[in-house]
């Protein structure tokens, strides 16, 4: 909200991307070439007319992509003036983006093996501004140039802080948690499925593949074949998780620089280097999925705007640790927020009223019984067997649902602790959120008709960061909701709350 014109700065020259990027872009020629090769192998080199057309279209699409990217590389110009980061791109549709440096939330530098061979890196800038896309991307910079640019973009708050230094470094013992985090078996199954579907493009049917696999086992009975395949899938899945962990977290190092900027370095094949300004961090989340809880592991996510990567652009940026022992995760949280004991530690949180448990139980039962009732109704009309199926499903699933409801209720809790508002919730993913109280932008108390009847309320805490830009304290007691709202931002609610 400053209106005065920026002072005249001497013209800063525009810089370009590296020419070497053109070599990287040649990767777009790999899929068509590979497709032709695969096809040739499977058919013995006889290109039918239909296959020829398909391969032709495929090649055409990739050549178009290659041309588009090449034009982008050749026409991109960028510069950092005193206050702004500017980016120009395009020939026909020219785009000019200019963002103030104080809007830069994070800088993410990555280099895949191809880039590294050529001494290049990709640099992404997260702005946290929804109107013009979350991210600006420079597809190819020389390493030294990227380093200079990064230093210019993420400056930290400038003031030296306590606790500068390494917050966490890779320990190979964490490898044991990796199968808990990636859904490895599922991943392999999906990959296999996709691969088989892809072969269909060349006229190779799934049945042919199955027949071929069956042939490998000779005379073995079908169930044994399936058992061997399932075991193989699990082994492959676990191996895949270990490999994925190694690739993602090799050389992991999470540190705080003297100027108060966070840096996360990691990666084996693709190296990543994330930098963000500490003053932009609105809080920390301790994430424990159900599997991770069973093994006593947890992960730390940062709450900051501009952390949403473009879909499909690698792993979650906001996760600054892999799954680590819960105590270690809490130690890292304590170092990040500079408060000890850490606000996320397993400690006394204000529990929610029993009415919240009753709500969860009721919902759990309805989630099971309503579909079962529909199934039974349909069954009664057309297929009597379905009634029995519905009854068995209901009897088996209601206890499970009730257990989950109880677990969900146990997770609920909130408390104001130091500079942070702590909120815990969730069953499948249990999240303990520690939100900076000075980052709270607005607060809402919300009540549905049933909540009014049972004396509950939900508090919506709006921040500039995080999913949906809000964190919810669900089903707190109405009194407790008012108390925590008033305590989170002192003086904000007090004129509007009275003792009855």
């Amino acid at each position, binding site marked *: *909200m400053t209106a005065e014109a920026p002072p005249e700065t001497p013209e800063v020259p525009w810089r370009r991307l590296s020419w070497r990027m053109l070599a990287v872009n040649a990767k777009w020629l790999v899929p068509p070439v590979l497709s032709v090769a695969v096809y040739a192998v499977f058919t013995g080199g006889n290109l039918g007319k239909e296959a020829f057309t398909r391969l032709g279209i495929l090649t055409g699409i990739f050549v178009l992509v290659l041309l588009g990217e090449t034009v982008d590389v050749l026409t991109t110009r960028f510069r950092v003036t005193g206050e702004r980061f500017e980016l120009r791109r395009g020939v026909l549709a020219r785009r000019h983006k200019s963002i103030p440096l*104080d*809007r830069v939330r994070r800088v993410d530098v990555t280099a895949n093996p191809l880039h590294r061979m050529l001494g290049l890196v990709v640099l992404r800038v997260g702005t946290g501004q*929804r109107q013009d896309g979350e991210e600006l991307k420079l597809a190819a910079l020389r390493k030294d140039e990227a380093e200079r640019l990064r230093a210019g973009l993420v400056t930290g708050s400038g003031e030296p802080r306590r606790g500068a230094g390494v917050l966490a470094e890779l320990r190979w013992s964490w490898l044991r948690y990796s199968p808990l985090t990636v859904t490895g078996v599922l991943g392999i199954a999906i990959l296999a499925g996709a691969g088989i579907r892809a072969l269909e493009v060349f006229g190779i049917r799934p049945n042919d593949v199955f027949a071929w696999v069956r042939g490998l086992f000779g005379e073995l009975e079908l169930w044994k074949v399936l058992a061997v395949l399932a075991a193989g899938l699990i082994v492959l899945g676990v191996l895949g998780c270990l490999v994925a962990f190694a690739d993602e977290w090799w050389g992991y190092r999470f540190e705080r620089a003297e100027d108060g900027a966070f840096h996360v370095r990691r990666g084996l094949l693709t190296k990543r280097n994330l930098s963000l300004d500490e003053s932009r961090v609105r809080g920390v989340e301790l994430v424990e999925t159900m599997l991770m809880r069973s093994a006593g592991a947890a992960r730390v996510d940062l709450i900051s*705007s501009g952390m949403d990567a473009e879909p499909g652009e690698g792993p979650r940026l906001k996760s600054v640790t892999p799954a680590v022992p819960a105590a270690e995760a809490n130690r890292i949280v304590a170092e990040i927020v500079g408060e000890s004991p850490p606000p996320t530690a397993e400690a006394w949180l204000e529990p929610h009223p029993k009415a919240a448990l009753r709500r969860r139980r009721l919902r759990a039962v309805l989630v099971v019984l309503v579909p079962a009732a529909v199934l039974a109704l349909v069954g009664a009309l057309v297929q009597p067997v379905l009634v029995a199926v519905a009854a068995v499903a209901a009897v088996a699933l209601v206890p499970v649902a009730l257990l989950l409801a109880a677990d969900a209720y146990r997770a609920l809790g909130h408390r104001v602790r130091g500079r942070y508002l702590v909120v815990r919730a969730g069953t499948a993913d249990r999240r303990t959120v520690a939100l900076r109280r000075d*980052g709270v*932008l*607005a*607060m*809402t*108390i*919300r*009540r*549905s*008709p049933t909540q*009014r009847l049972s004396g509950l309320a939900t508090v*919506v805490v*709006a*921040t*500039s960061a995080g999913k*949906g*830009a*809000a964190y919810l304290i669900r089903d707190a007691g*109405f*009194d407790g909701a*008012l*108390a925590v709202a008033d305590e989170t*931002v002192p*003086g*904000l*609610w007090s*004129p*509007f*709350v*009275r*003792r*009855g």
Partner: protein
Amino acid sequence: MSEPLELVPPRHRVPSRAMRWWTVRAAITDVVLLAVVAGCAVWLRGVLPGALLTAIAVVAVLTAAAYLVLMPRVRYRVHRWEVTADAVYTSSGWVWQEWRVAPLSRVQTVDTERGPLQQLFGLATVTVTTASSAGAVKIAGLSHEVAKDVVRTLTAVTQSTPGDAT
């Protein structure tokens, strides 16, 4: 924490003609939905038994009537707003109700909006946004003149706030 806490409703009501505005909106919604129901009924005539169709029609008409009569009145009772020296405070909704406070130091923009119906009744909606999509405060159905005053006050306050209000 001995005595129970309760919320003080915001100080101001919206003008009672806002009730007429909500009634007209409810009437439009009702007409559209009833037309859809009627269309489906005609289409399903012969497929479903006549008694069932009649029952559906009766329920639809009763629901529509209840919405038309109840919604504007309950909304009017709930809808309140207040601007203090430090914050904007509103209560809104009818079935689901909410009370929202945004500190003025966090306000980024202040907008007024007047749809054709609102213009007809001399009403306006003021939207106060913060840097969070979940933190916008809406005061719907203000009288046009009051809305102008509110915008003037809020703009003056927010312009004097340094920083980008994140």
